[in-house]
């Protein structure tokens, strides 16, 4: 039984300011670290594309199903995010190891020829993020102190 009550003058002023603000709404990008790739501005995809996230999308198990290439894509293009963190964990589970000096991922290609407490030497596969491909490196010395 209360019914509507007329807006007082101060509320009308508030409404005008709110209405003006409505035309400059905050966007997801406004509170996201400046980064060169992939701002959080979701694009409207056709409705028949799956719109909801897969239920376990942010778990290591889900990332382990992704191909190595995809994991490297997530790692190098979504830096500073949980996705990068999960991709790194999934890569390690596929026995890749991150070299903190070269900032690249390496994977043993065969049993190392030399191995001691400080390093191992042998043939490795590494992921070259500039050429975006996996390459072999013969006789590489992998120093454990650079292992992340």
């Amino acid at each position: 039984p209360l019914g509507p009550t007329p807006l007082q003058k101060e509320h009308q002023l508030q409404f005008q300011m709110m209405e003006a603000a409505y035309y400059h709404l905050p966007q997801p990008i406004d509170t996201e670290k400046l980064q060169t790739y992939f701002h959080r501005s979701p694009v409207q995809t056709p409705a028949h594309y799956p719109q909801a996230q897969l239920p376990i999308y942010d778990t290591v198990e889900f990332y382990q199903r992704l191909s190595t290439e995809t994991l490297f894509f997530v790692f190098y293009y979504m830096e500073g995010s949980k996705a990068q963190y999960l991709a790194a964990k999934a890569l390690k589970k596929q026995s890749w190891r991150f070299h903190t000096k070269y900032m690249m991922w390496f994977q043993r290609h065969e049993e190392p020829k030399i191995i001691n407490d400080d390093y191992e030497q042998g043939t490795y596969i590494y992921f070259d993020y500039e050429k975006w491909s996996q390459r072999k490196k013969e006789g590489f010395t992998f120093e454990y102190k650079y292992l992340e």
Partner: protein
Amino acid sequence: TDDPPGLQEKTEFLLKDWVALYTQQNQLTTRDARNFGAFVQKMNTYGILKTDDLITRFFRQATQICTDVVYRMFADPSLPINQAKNKIFQWIDAFVHLIAMLVRHSGEAGNPTTKINLLNKVLGIVLGTLLKDHELRGVGFQQVGYHRFFMMLFMELCSADSTLESLMHSIVSAFAYTYHLLNPSVAPGFCFAWLELISHRVFLGRILVQIPGQKGWPLYAQLLQDLFKYLAPFLRNTELGKPVGLLYKGTLRVLLVLLHDFPEFLCDYHFGFCDTIPPNCVQMRNIILSAFPRNMRLPDPFTPNLKVDMLSDSSNAPKVCSSYIMNIQPPNFKKDLDSYLKARAPVTFLSELRGHLQVTTEPGTRYNMTLMNALVMYVGTQAIALIRNKNFVPNTSNIAHSAHMDIFQNLAVDLDTEGRYLFLNAIANQLRYPNSHTHYFSCAVLHLFAEANSEAIQEQITRVLLERLIVNRPHPWGLLITFIELIKNPIYKFWEHDFVHCAPEITKLFESVARSCL
């Protein structure tokens, strides 16, 4: 106006220098510390750090420069919006980083006061600049720069850093207090950004989880109160319009996150929220009233012969973190109330009751809802205490024939439709999860129905309960069990009333509710 000559130029020069440094280093921590050290030296050389007053003036000038960048970038029609924002964010992120580094490294290691004072100072300066900007520019006001500033500064001060981690309570309190001073009633042009800031996932986690002992809860309750206060006049006039509709929908989302993750928070502060939420916002209020402690299992309200008074939880008083007793004003009214509850004297108390509650003759705003809510809550809790002292459990018989029920019956009879609506709402707002208040007020409203001396009162009781039941979910447990009892228990003769059959769809509605109950 009374800045020392040359300060603005110095500030502009230093800030440009820092922005350049920050942009190229792009936060590589290795160079970060060295760049910062060198920059502080430069600030020193320019005399900025000489006195507290000069530092304050520097921050105000720097804030103003960043604000000017925002409007300059937006004024350039040739600049696409995202490029304009990138430019703006470079300046603001750099300014934020400088502040975060100064907060982190100011004062002696063990002395947090210097750091927190500096943070509060800067927040105050940006707040002041925003309010002045908001007032001067009116509908031309742009929230984006300030939104970025508060968000990025909070995120940077929350990032993994052992020094700041120990100051988390003070840091979060500083931001919560600033947001309170910045609430939508004060800065309506900032309201959308404000709602984003107070509901940001990191802010929620900090203020409601990571500050030990729930010390952040009262701060957050205050912010929600600010939001409801602002929305109230617009929501009262149900045609929302797009801006209010968006803010309202955003509020529902925040409340649903709170209901899901922090139900105990909504339980403890429900009273203050119901004081502010307009009575016609039935669903929004139901979200708050539907919250129950996560460790509690609610018996199915449709359980046949459910004995609510046998539930162990029905004897536990819920936590009510709102100082509602303070709202029973004026003091001599409270004195008469206590005296009447104790000795049913002065006898004039009941006849004067309506006069205390009615504040205007304006339809729709005749009554003081805050006083009504406080009065009902106070009388009810006093009644529960009295019954418990006699080692009884409240039930529909032992709550009768008491000074407390005299007051409720007087209100039911003496108030007009509008007043009685607020009175019945005050009762229905306590029908929540199993606790002693839910149980008592459930008995009270059923007793008022049974003892009503007019069908109008019974109809209105039904309406107040029904309007809370026919809205989309969620529905509070206490409301369901009360309504089920009303339509099931023959002593209320519910189905014999004309108003139950006043229209075919109403009859159908009651029958469908009855079917789901029985």
